[in-house]
């Protein structure tokens, strides 16, 4: 399955949207082996595209990703390892009010601090831009 800009892709209760050639949004939940396998495949292709197009920095907005199981954390570990070895930067936009975002992404960043940045944002109030 290939990602195309602005086209929403659903894998069970996980939604992926390539906002631009340098930004991906993940939403919903990621908690089944099938969804993890699918996502791993999609991210492998995305990684290959990032390397081929010599993109230096890629952003992943996980704010709408509200629940993952522990096996899914592995998907992010693997992507960070690939980014480090290919030499591009991953920026994760996280939601301050979501405990797993705040705690797990700080540890994920520590795996490759030169290649991973975390931008923590507060949930937007109704009627305000995020």
């Amino acid at each position, binding site marked *: 399955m290939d990602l195309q800009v602005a086209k929403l892709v659903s894998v069970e209760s996980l939604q992926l949207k390539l906002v631009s050639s340098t930004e991906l949004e993940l939403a919903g939940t990621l*908690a089944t082996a099938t969804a993890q396998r699918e996502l791993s495949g999609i991210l492998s292709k995305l990684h290959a595209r990032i390397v081929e197009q010599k993109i230096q920095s890629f952003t992943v907005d996980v704010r709408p990703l509200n*629940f993952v*199981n*522990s*096996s899914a*954390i*592995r998907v992010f*570990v*693997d992507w*960070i*390892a690939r980014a480090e070895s290919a030499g591009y930067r991953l920026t994760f936009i996280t939601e301050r*009010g*979501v*405990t*797993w975002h705040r*705690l*797990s992404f700080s*540890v*994920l960043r*520590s*795996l*490759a601090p030169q290649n991973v940045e975390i931008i923590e944002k507060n949930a937007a109030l109704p009627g305000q831009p995020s």
Partner: protein
Amino acid sequence: MTEPKSSRGVERTLKLLHGGKAVEDAKRLAELAVTCCDAQCRQAASMAAWELAENLLKYGATDPTKSAGTIAVSVENNTIRVRTTNTVHSPKDARHVQETVSRIATSPSARDLYRERLLELFGDPSQQRAQLGLLRIAFEGSFTLSCSFEAPLLEIVAERACSEH
């Protein structure tokens, strides 16, 4: 919706069956049991119930005609308790759980243990099992873990202080 005060302290129990939506049901059980708690507690309880239920289905009895085990959730005296009980398929797995729980209980930092495991996975992507569930419950969920194994029965208990609305 707020849980009626009279039902607090009651332990809600669910038998988990292989197949279907057993893990989602365990998460829902936890969500129902902690409606009186704040957002952080609710997130922590859902995550712990999910991880423990997944472990139970992975490592518990494999007979599809019987329940794999039970999960129970309660809130009492400002403490959330998530408890799983199951017959283990392999005593080796039960010993591994005991060792992991003991390592977490004696470590000054659950974050360090979690990071250590992520570093192992980072350095060796070929590892099949993530084995992050219990570490995540302790680190992200701030739960204290304990377990007991009297063959063939394994019980894991996760407890944390909770703040009510």
